[in-house]
């Protein structure tokens, strides 16, 4: 505890860095998974490719990706971009499956009846399918968010791990308390992100968590 108080500036800095580095991949994953997931939902070949690349990306150890990305991207070794791109890849891979599920999950009856009402393709996508995929997208995004926040700490091995610094540093200094502080703050960041997502969900998808009223069947 006293260590935390003495080092609160450091911990705060690392926490903010952690949040910054992990927030970007989460947002990127959400944005990328919508068009890709949609494509996979519609086109059988695309589905095959998308879902097997999910498995493929997960076979790459994160450390390898952190090390090798500068080579592929031509970025500088310590560029934030390396970590963000690597985490984005994992996040997209995780998110994609959820996006495909989400779009699959939209009831064909609703889709058909909306088409019968005279929705255009684009209108159908933006105002019917996307919002209705929302709950599944959100559920997946929550898992992705938690996973990304936790995975980032491995990047401490290349000096870009946010709170992961406390792990390597605590390890070298024989200081378990420091590692525990790191773990707790990682959990706090994950929790904070989750809270944001849940609140965003409540605001954007108010219908998704209705208590059924008496008389409803």
């Amino acid at each position, binding site marked *: 505890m006293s260590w935390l108080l003495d080092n609160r500036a450091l911990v705060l800095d690392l926490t903010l860095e952690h949040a910054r580095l992990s927030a970007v991949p989460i947002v990127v994953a959400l944005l990328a998974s919508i068009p890709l997931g949609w494509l996979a939902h519609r086109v059988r070949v695309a589905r095959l490719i998308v879902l097997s690349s999910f498995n493929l990306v997960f076979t790459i150890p994160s450390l390898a990706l952190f090390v090798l990305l500068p080579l592929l991207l031509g970025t500088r070794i310590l560029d934030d971009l390396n970590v963000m791109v690597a985490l984005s890849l994992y996040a997209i891979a995780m998110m994609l499956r959820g996006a495909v599920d989400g779009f699959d999950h939209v009831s064909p009856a609703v889709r058909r009846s909306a*088409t*019968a009402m*005279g929705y255009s393709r684009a209108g159908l996508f933006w105002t019917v399918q996307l*919002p*209705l995929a929302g709950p599944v997208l959100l559920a997946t995004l929550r898992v992705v968010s938690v996973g990304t926040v936790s995975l980032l700490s491995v990047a401490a091995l290349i000096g870009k791990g946010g709170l992961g610094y406390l792990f390597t540093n605590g390890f070298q200094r024989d200081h378990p308390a420091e590692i525990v502080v790191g773990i707790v703050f990682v959990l706090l960041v994950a929790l904070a992100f989750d809270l944001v997502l849940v609140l965003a969900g409540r605001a954007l998808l108010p*219908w*998704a968590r209705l208590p059924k*009223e008496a008389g*409803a069947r």
Partner: protein
Amino acid sequence: MIEFIDVTKSYDGDAPAVENVSLRLPARSITVLVGSSGSGKTTLLRMVNRMVDPTSGRVEIDGEDVAARPPVALRRGIGYVPQHSGLLPHRRVIDNIATVPLLNGEPKAAAHRRASELMDVVGLDASLAGRYPAQLSGGQQQRVAVARALAGDPNILLMDEPFGAVDPIVRAELQQETLRLQHELRKTIVFVTHDIDEAFLLGDEVVILRRGGRVAQRGTPADILADPVDAFVAAFIGSDRGRRRLTISSRRPTTGADRVVVDAGGYPVGVIAAPAGQLAAGDPTPRSRGTRMAG
């Protein structure tokens, strides 16, 4: 008037769902397509608003080929009520009903005003306007679906087993409501069901379909009942099991001077007035909605 001209529809590779069907549905009356599962009722119905395009043949509305019309605009001009209301679960009742006016670019206030009127027309309490579909009973959902279909003020209403999923008492209520509405609005309604009783109740004209959408018999309910053309129709309407062949039972003189009427199996179907032991015959003419007055 809706006309199917030699339409055939094959879904990829399978035997055709609908094969060489020609059928003319009169304007401003209810035509019921009835047939068992897979007979192609839905396929035929959906050809009208181009949810399904025929593999060959064509569908005309008032003499104009629907294939010539852009599907989105066409659909906005035709009301559609599916079996499971197909309401948008993420929109409130009022917004669901206002869907078509909003799609047509009407201002929100006007669209909502129209939607409120329609809630009244279909017998929905105004207090339900702010609910989401999941908060309604099945019967209420179907009323919303009907209101939504009416919101674009279409001439044609397509109804695909709209009351198939609600319980019998509610269904009876909705059927009566449909008759009342039609009396007021006089739309061209194509109604799909696989319940022959519902068909006879609602149809000005009933079309009984076999597999492949082939017409087994068409006519007013009374025509079909009195004179089924073949064994298939007889089986379908239940007269082969004697369900339609009635006799008056002697055993049970009930309150008043009613007698129980039984079918050929001996099971009771209703009571008939027999004042003073005499059966009043020759009174009412079987109705057809075409000539019917306020219900």
